[in-house]
């Protein structure tokens, strides 16, 4: 899992579906969820989690994307296998990992030091634990 510490800034609820907004180092994040624990309120500090295989990477993008979470990041390390590529990313103080196909990594010519955007769907972001109420 890749983890992001963030603070709840807004919760929209309708028929058991919630969209929870967070802020983490000036980056706003958004999570789609079914019922949310009643311990989670505005201002609650949480640790968010996302599976490395659920993080996509974009470079030099134009146009618009439906991804609710777009984090400006820098590539700090790349480990290429035969088929897959593990890309380590840094966004402000947050380190996280993206697992993509080696083909994508080569096609995008990803290199250490590249500035990229990490893309996470709101439905792939989850609250791992409550740090501070």
């Amino acid at each position: 899992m890749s983890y992001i510490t963030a603070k709840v800034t807004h919760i929209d609820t309708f028929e058991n579906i919630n969209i929870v907004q967070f802020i983490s180092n000036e980056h706003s994040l958004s999570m789609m969820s079914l019922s949310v624990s009643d311990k989670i309120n505005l201002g609650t500090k949480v640790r968010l989690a996302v599976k490395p295989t659920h993080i996509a990477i974009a470079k030099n993008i134009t146009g618009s994307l439906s991804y609710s979470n777009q984090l400006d990041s820098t590539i700090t390390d790349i480990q290429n296998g035969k088929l897959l590529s593990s890309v380590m990313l840094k966004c402000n103080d947050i380190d996280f990992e993206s697992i993509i196909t080696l083909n994508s990594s080569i096609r995008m010519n990803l290199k250490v030091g590249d500035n990229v955007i990490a893309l996470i769907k709101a439905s792939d972001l989850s609250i791992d634990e409550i740090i501070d109420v």
Partner: protein
Amino acid sequence: MLSININKTLHGSSGEMDLDINIKIKEHDFVALTGESGSGKTTLLRTLAGLDDAKGKILLGNDVWLDSKINLAVQKRQIGFVFQDYALFENMNVEENLLFINKDKDLASKLLNITELSALKKRAVTTLSGGQKQRISLCRALMNRPKLLLMDEPLSALDPKMREKLQNEILILHKEFKTTTIMVSHDPSEIYKLSNRVIVLNKGKVINDGSPKDVLLKTTGSAKFSFEGKLLEIIKADVIYIAVISIGQQIVEVAVSQEEMKNLTIGNTVNLSTKAFTPNIK
């Protein structure tokens, strides 16, 4: 309302333990009692039945079953008890087992009808299958129209198909006879299907008490799809790893990255979870 406020010292395999229970159960509730073995579930049922004594108070409505002066006998408590091992009278046939409790033949045939055992009423109980025996045991427990039906893991010895059939019959009988029912069970699907309240015991104390969904949905954070399993193996695959985990009777595989793998130890119990949006259902 069934009010239970009892205290009793138990001598279990892990030393002395205080059974200390203070709960109220509403009329017509179906309560599932769960928790690790040795947590006091069976003792609680036996104390309610009057088979074990304890200090404290048990009240059903305004009737005192237990207090400092009174300890009402088993047969005066208006209870039905279903044991895991059936506890039938083996020298009697099916019908005789029921009529031994109460001579009401109409009630006996009604119960045998609901449980589809009418054709077997003259059969010796020793010739029956486990599922049939437990249905007779259930019918017998209802012969004195109990206000409180107590069942101690009644279905745990049965195969899954028979279990499901009996779950339906238990539910029908619970509604038909308007009993307050307390059933010891370890099976989450059974608890979810039958009960409207789950009480979890640990070392003689209530550690969780709520609706089946609240108690059984093992959520960590916002993950709604969550299981406990045992990590059996980690297999390297390209730049990632495959974790092999056993959950219940099944083996599952989960792809993990090298970073995720660092915190895993083979043989450990792990929590496996994902969001409600991810799993496919076919």
